């Protein structure tokens, strides 16, 4: 392990630590949801380790419980994670100069929170080892927190009152990521359009409304940037 990897790892971990608190209730809720679907603790932990994707796990549970056809379960998981094709493409230049196995690991560990925190510095640092450390430390920390608290949720399923609404802390974590981005006007427009269209299109099948909302938001932000740019020129 080179020292620039370690420096990167330390900085990435520090940047992500306060936000990682948002994963805790989400993982607890996930553990409890899997048990209430009827999984054994071993099956629930198995899903948590193999899948490692919050929305896809939560989204497919009702279908598994209803014994839906496998293709529908897979399509739903795919639809819920399609946004990651966009994230993967955006952050990919940050992995130039790393080995194939490291990139598979990084791909498997990519999450919304780690993406939002790491993207900027991943694209603006010239040291591949530093960048890999900066990504892998928060990603591995997310994985560990997720599995530990999923297990606690699985074991505690019978004891935590649902009225505490702990899952809302996951939404707060996403808000904490969003607010500093929205200080730049085209970003704010992307967020407003993305949020509004996802809300209005929530009844589209397979939660495609989220995908359409993201695309609409990107288009709006890009258009706003171009208009702002044109207005600045005399």
């Amino acid at each position, binding site marked *: 392990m080179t020292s620039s990897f370690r420096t990167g790892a330390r900085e990435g971990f520090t940047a992500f630590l306060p936000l990682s608190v948002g994963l805790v209730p989400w993982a607890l809720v996930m553990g409890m949801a899997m048990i209430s679907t009827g999984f054994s603790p071993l099956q629930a932990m198995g899903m948590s380790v193999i899948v490692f994707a919050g929305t896809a796990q939560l989204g497919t549970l009702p279908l598994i419980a209803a014994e839906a056809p496998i293709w529908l379960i897979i399509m739903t998981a795919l639809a819920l994670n399609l946004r990651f094709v966009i994230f993967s*493409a955006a952050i990919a230049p940050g992995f130039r100069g790393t080995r194939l196995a490291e990139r598979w690991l990084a791909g498997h560990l990519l999450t919304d929170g780690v993406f939002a925190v790491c993207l900027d510095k991943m694209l603006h640092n010239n040291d591949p080892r530093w960048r890999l450390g900066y990504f892998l430390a928060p990603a591995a920390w997310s994985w560990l927190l997720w599995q530990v608290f999923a297990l606690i949720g699985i074991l505690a399923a019978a004891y935590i009152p649902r009225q505490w609404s702990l899952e809302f802390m996951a939404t707060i974590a996403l808000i904490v990521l969003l607010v500093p981005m929205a200080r730049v006007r085209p970003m704010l427009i992307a967020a407003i359009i993305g949020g509004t269209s996802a809300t209005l299109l929530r009844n589209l099948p397979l939660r495609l409304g989220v995908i359409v909302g993201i695309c609409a938001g990107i288009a709006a932000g890009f258009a706003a940037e171009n208009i702002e740019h044109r207005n600045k020129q005399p």
Partner: protein
Amino acid sequence: MNFDASLWLVFILIGLATTLPRASFIVLGNRVTLPGVVQRALRYAPAAALAAIVVPDLLIVGNELQVFNPKLAAGCAAVAASTLWRNPWLPFIAGMTVLLGLRFGLGL
């Protein structure tokens, strides 16, 4: 309910359906590059995606659009806390206090 060995197959397939999109461009690396225009547009992906997940969660109660509800008030408190102060834990405290205060204090 009883789940058999086929459940593990379902887990593996869901795992592939979630890992392949995430790994796609990271693994393909330099063999596939996106044009500059697309990369510029993609900078808006995180903000758009976060909002597309958060906003419906704050506005929808039982599949109905409800503008006045405890979740939206709690969301506003979290936004205010993260705008006004640097402390990273405050949005969580503010948001959960408002949510639970409105739910249990006022019975909303």
